[in-house]
């Protein structure tokens, strides 16, 4: 062992250094490797998770965009429909108003005509009555005889009835 002693190999020092190494290994395992590995693992997990989440969010955004486009399209269609319906309704109302106005006007005209007719009839009636009396009076003067008023009247009415000019409408 002389040669080895010259190199400096000594069992107590060797044992001490082995113990030192084991202590260092244990301590570093506790304060360095375990936390660092845990941290690295956790970070890679976080990154993977957030990438997955990003992908998910992207998909969701795409879906939402599509949905919004669809909704806008539907809304615009609906709006178009509403406008068309309103226009149709407006036209209908206008037409109805026109028709009503026309009917009213026609009714008015009809009433006016009936009034005129009635007036005319009345006038003719009165004219006839007067004429008859005048005629009777004239005839009485001519023949100087009082005619039986009643009988004459019948005659005159008959004449008038036959006459066309003063016929009742």
């Amino acid at each position, binding site marked *: 062992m002389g040669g080895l002693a010259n190199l400096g190999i000594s069992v107590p*020092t*060797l044992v001490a*250094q082995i113990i030192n*190494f*084991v202590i260092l*290994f244990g*301590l570093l395992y506790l*304060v360095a*490797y375990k936390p660092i*590995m845990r941290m690295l693992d956790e970070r890679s997990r976080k990154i993977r998770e957030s990438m997955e989440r990003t992908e998910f969010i992207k998909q969701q955004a795409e879906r939402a965009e599509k949905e919004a486009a669809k909704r806008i399209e539907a809304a615009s269609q609906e709006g178009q429909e509403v406008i068309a319906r309103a226009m149709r309704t407006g036209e209908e109302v206008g037409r109805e108003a026109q028709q009503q106005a026309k009917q009213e006007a026609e009714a008015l005209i009809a009433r006016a005509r009936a009034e005129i007719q009635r007036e005319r009839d009345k006038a003719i009636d009165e004219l006839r009555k007067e004429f008859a009396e005048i005629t009777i009076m004239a005839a009485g003067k001519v023949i100087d005889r009082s005619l039986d008023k009643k009988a004459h009247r019948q005659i005159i009415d008959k004449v008038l009835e036959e006459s066309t000019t003063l016929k009742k409408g």
Partner: protein
Amino acid sequence: MPKRGFLGCSFPVIVGISLVFFVLFALGFAAGPLGRSIFGDLGLPSWLTVPQPDPKLPAEVVLHPFGFPITNSIVGAWLTIVFLVGFSYAVTRRMKLIPTRLQSAFEYGLGWLYDLCQSVAGEKNGRRFFPVVTTIFLFVALNAWLSLLPGFGSITVGTAEGEMPLLRGANTDINMPLALALMSFVFVEYFGLRSRGFRYLGKFINIGQFSQSLGQLFRGRLRAGLSGLITGVIDIFVGFLEALSELVRIVSFTFRLFGNMTAGEILLLIAMFLIPWIFALPFYGLELLVGFVQALIFGGLTLVFLTVAVAPHGAEAA
């Protein structure tokens, strides 16, 4: 950023610095033994020179608590351990998912070693080997670098044999490299046995072919038995060589590290002795690199041996 100048300094500054360096170098050269042997004694003050180094291979015993001899290399190892553990604790005490600068740097360094382990040994085994390899790497590198710090070898303590440096790079004492090599050996055998069981031992004691051929011989199949017997003997011999190589690894591990570290230490001492002062600067840079490289070699080889030990026999032969 000024484009002119050199190394980020303006020309007058760089010239001044060069001048100071040159004067220091010339003064050291003239005062040191090399210059003195050329120019003779110029009467320069003696504090300019560095005492002649007297490197000893065995580490000096500096403390004797309870009769247990503590060498200065053990103290050096303790310093390294305290430094490493303290630094790691300071960094990992409050780990955050979004790291601070220090934590980021620490994680980067360990992550580099982690990736190295995984690229050599594979995903699962790399994770198992990482603590072993990293501990060896960190210890060797930190120990080498710490012993380059100014004052590391200057603190002396009085002992029975006179003044001795209190600290000494642990790897310049052969016991530490030997301890590391033994630990590396133990881990290799442990992982080999653990992952492959008794088949791992079959690599060293390979008597399957031999006993089979012996059986053939007894059953009277002479030709087949004899040729098989020869192959069996070769197998046994190969197994013996395998076992021997495991042991030789310990020796080569030990002396590679011990030799490099000791040589580096002596190189620095000699450089400082021959031409005191700044002449040793480039060698300091060299030793920084050597410490890193030796750490990488020790850790890397351990990693490779571990990987080979857990690999199935067939894959290894292929």
